[in-house]
């Protein structure tokens, strides 16, 4: 258990440092990438491209190993879920909030140390939205039952 927590802390730390040096904690970079009609900033495409390389290799190793170094079974299939309305509606809402603010969950957390009051307010609103999600999901599923 202790090893798992240490590995998680290390993973979080590398993730956060990567978000910082790639410029993803700077909302002008993110919004500059989303704004294709403005002075377009290509940085985010390089960040995504760079991140996909180690992950694609990791999935290949995972497919062979099947078991993680600290014992768990690696989740190789995405839980049997398919494309459903919570996925599409949720991603659209997330995108709208991302466009308005320039922050997604990782950078919102990573920048807590220097994001000031605005960053803290954003984070609290984000957590509130997360608390509201299970009820919203139940309502969506009543309207359009999963097939």
């Amino acid at each position: 258990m202790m090893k798992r927590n240490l590995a998680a802390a290390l993973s979080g730390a590398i993730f956060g440092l990567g978000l910082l040096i790639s410029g993803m904690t700077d909302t002008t970079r993110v919004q500059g990438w989303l704004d294709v009609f403005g002075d377009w900033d290509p940085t985010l495409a390089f960040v995504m491209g760079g991140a996909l390389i180690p992950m694609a290799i990791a999935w290949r190793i995972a497919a062979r190993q099947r078991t993680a170094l600290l014992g768990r079974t690696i989740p190789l299939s995405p839980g049997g879920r398919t494309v459903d309305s919570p996925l599409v509606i949720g991603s659209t809402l997330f995108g709208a909030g991302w466009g308005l603010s320039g922050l997604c969950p990782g950078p919102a957390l990573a920048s807590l140390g220097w994001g000031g009051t605005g960053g803290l307010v954003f984070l609290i609103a984000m957590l509130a939205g997360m608390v509201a999600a299970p009820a919203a999901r139940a309502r969506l599923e009543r309207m359009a039952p999963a097939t």
Partner: protein
Amino acid sequence: MFDIAWLWGLLGGLMIGGAGALYLLVNGRVMGASGIVGGLVDGSGRDSWAERASFLAGLIALPGLAVLLSGGSDTHLTGNWALVILGGLLVGLGTRLANGCTSGHGVCGISRLSLRGIVATVFYILAGGIVMVLARHVLGWI
């Protein structure tokens, strides 16, 4: 003008993917920021709270320390409180409904060619682009 932002982007991206690879191969978990924190606030991740809290501690502490030592950084977040609060609510609600964000669906999903990850990414980028362009060029909010 010579701009090396893309090189920092690539290097940072490799670190983000490396962190995800570590989380997957050592802990056997998909690294998604919204899922890790979301499971703590809605109680669904109670069984693995220490692992989640450790991840978040590293995520907040190391960049914070790096910025402290390097003399500062700026998120350039808008000063418009309505946008900050609305943006936060939408990001929190949307990522939990979709079960993932830029890290979980984007980085970890696309890299294994998950249909859900690809569809989610197409929708959040399209919505983000449309809202950004409307908010800046049509409504003048940003």
